[in-house]
């Protein structure tokens, strides 16, 4: 028999759980948080200035040109959108599968989703070149014909997919937060705090009838988010797959993109949660090594799915007998961008293999380093897909290289400033573990006072 391990360590009472989780919200931040926040904020300011210069000067500052018309903007957009997927997987799909360990990581993973999608959303808006005309993306009645958006274009599908995803994940996250805001409201020592959290809690009261409807809606949102999250990266992959470019025009793209998205997202969750565990030592009882190990298993599994996709793409390119397809893949691995391809393979397929060993899966330093490599590898995956396919297509007279500029670098690194600033603020303002969701699993894997084990 496999013993169920406790999800929450230590003999805690409900009150102690409330106290532990509310502590970061109710105390003054320490030096570590302040140092991180100021670094992140400086990076955010740098990002805003870079965007300002790029928007006012023009897209020429970036390396995109003929033939590589999609560059950092699209690569980094797909990167951040992909990161968001792990949050929805944890909060929705694992909820439907009744995976109780998700409760203590769900809140922060969902927060990561919301912030990653916010960060991602900026890129295509700037990529349009004239961001002040971005409202043209929305089909609205107008006096130009009326002229409508092209509903047959994958790029427009993306507008709908990403905006729906952003809206639904934000609502899902907020619905989860409502009872916890009520908890903080009722603990508030000052009037200002009580008013702010009281407004955020919408006046939640927690009666049986409230909870009954609430739980039903939570289940419904999980059920709706599950196909949604799968559709989002599928539609992102359509941006590529629906074109006729060798290297893009493949049917494997939707599942391959979704697996990659979950892989990269879990990489980011592990990066963030290892840091949260260091920053808030009390959270170690909630986000336990067992939780981290479960996520590392998912990283390894999805990493191998991605590896399978790399191999399968190569095989199909050869098996298809299409000269251009074959060339596109040989060029990826051995052409001028060979280094990007092999960084991708090393980071995504080889390095996560260390998680075959239990000690590696349970070692915080190792998982932190691996998760960073996963993040790097997944950025390079999108770089490889986007740039190597574009830079050499059918006619050699149409070949070229991507003229990566320092503005590309500025906007890539700056986006981390935006993401980290919001995430750090979140850790101090919102309860970073779901209080109401963790309490029901308190006795999982423990002998309870009512005799016998809880099976939850």
């Amino acid at each position, binding site marked *: 028999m496999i013993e169920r391990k406790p999800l929450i360590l230590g003999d805690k*009472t*409900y*009150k102690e759980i*409330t106290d532990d989780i509310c502590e970061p919200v109710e105390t003054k931040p320490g030096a570590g948080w302040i140092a991180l926040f100021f670094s992140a904020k400086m990076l955010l300011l740098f990002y805003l200035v870079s965007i300002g210069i790029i928007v006012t000067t023009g897209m020429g500052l970036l390396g995109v040109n003929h033939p590589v018309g999609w560059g950092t903007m699209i690569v980094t957009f797909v990167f951040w959108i992909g990161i968001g997927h792990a949050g929805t997987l944890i909060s929705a799909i694992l909820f439907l599968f009744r995976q109780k360990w998700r409760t203590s990581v769900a809140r922060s993973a969902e927060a990561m989703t919301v912030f990653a999608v916010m960060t991602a959303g900026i890129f295509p808006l700037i990529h349009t070149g004239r961001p002040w005309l971005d409202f043209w993306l929305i*089909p609205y009645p107008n006096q130009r*014909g*009326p*002229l*409508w958006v092209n*509903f*047959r274009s*994958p790029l*427009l*599908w993306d507008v*709908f*997919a990403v905006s*729906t995803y952003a*809206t*639904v994940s934000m*609502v*899902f996250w907020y*619905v989860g937060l*409502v*009872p916890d805001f*009520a*908890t903080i*409201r*009722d*603990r508030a020592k000052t009037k200002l705090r009580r008013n702010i959290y*009281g*407004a955020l809690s*919408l*006046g*939640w*009261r*927690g*009666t*049986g*009838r*409230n*909870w*009954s*409807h*609430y*739980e*039903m*809606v939570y289940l*419904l*949102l999980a059920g*709706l988010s599950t*196909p*949604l999250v799968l*559709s989002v990266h599928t*539609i992102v992959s359509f941006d590529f797959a629906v074109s006729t470019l060798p290297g893009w025009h493949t049917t494997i793209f939707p599942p391959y993109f979704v697996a990659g998205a979950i892989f990269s997202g879990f990489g980011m969750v592990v990066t963030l949660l290892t840091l949260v565990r260091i920053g808030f030592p009390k959270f170690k009882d909630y986000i336990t090594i067992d939780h981290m190990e479960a996520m590392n298993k998912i990283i390894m599994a999805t990493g191998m799915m991605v590896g399978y996709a790399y191999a399968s793409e190569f095989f199909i390119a050869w098996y298809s007998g299409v000269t251009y397809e074959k060339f596109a893949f040989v060029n990826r691995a051995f052409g001028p961008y060979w280094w990007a391809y092999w960084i991708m393979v090393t980071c995504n397929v080889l390095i996560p293999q260390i998680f075959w060993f239990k000690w590696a899966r349970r070692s915080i330093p190792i998982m932190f380093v691996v998760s960073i490599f996963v993040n790097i590898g997944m950025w390079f995956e999108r770089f490889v897909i986007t740039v190597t396919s574009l830079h050499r297509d059918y006619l050699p007279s149409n070949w070229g290289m991507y003229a990566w500029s320092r503005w590309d670098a500025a906007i890539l690194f700056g986006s981390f400033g935006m993401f980290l600033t919001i995430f750090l603020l979140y850790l101090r303002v919102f309860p970073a573990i779901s*209080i*109401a*969701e963790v*309490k*029901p699993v308190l006795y999982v894997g423990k002998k309870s006072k*009512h005799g016998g084990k809880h099976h939850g």
Partner: protein
Amino acid sequence: MAKKTLSGVVGFWSDDHEIVAAAHKMREAGYKYFDAITPFPVHGMEEAVGIKRSFIPYITFIAAVTGGCVGLLFQYWVAVVSWPLNIGGKPLFSAPAFIPVTFELTILFAALSSVVAMFAVNKLPKINPPIIDPDLTSHKFALWVPETEPGYSPEKVEAFLKQLGAEEVRRVAEF
């Protein structure tokens, strides 16, 4: 018009299993309008208090169907009626290309309507609602009997709650 807040009697427990058992007994004793107040959804409480299955999934379904129809019909109207463009001789109503947006609108309508319905039926947002005890969102559990209960008398309810094992019983002026 019904009063916005009600007076009543409330009994406190600090164990979630005991309060479920108490709620069962309370329902068996014939109480109809009582409710539990808990910091988290307690397993088995819906059955104990006698709460019916939430009707919100019906709203979700209607909203989903509406969203899908709106999405598909709007794209049809744009592509066939308002701005017909002949692209490579393909049919104006090129349905497969319209599926992604139809799907996204289905999900969007369903999700937002479910949440709005939940807020509405739970009467949220509520501005500065009366709170019985701040611990009820942290580690205490309560059974609440409002004055609307048939044959309500505070003394009787207080005695009954104590008999059920409530650790503390309190009269509340408004909730």
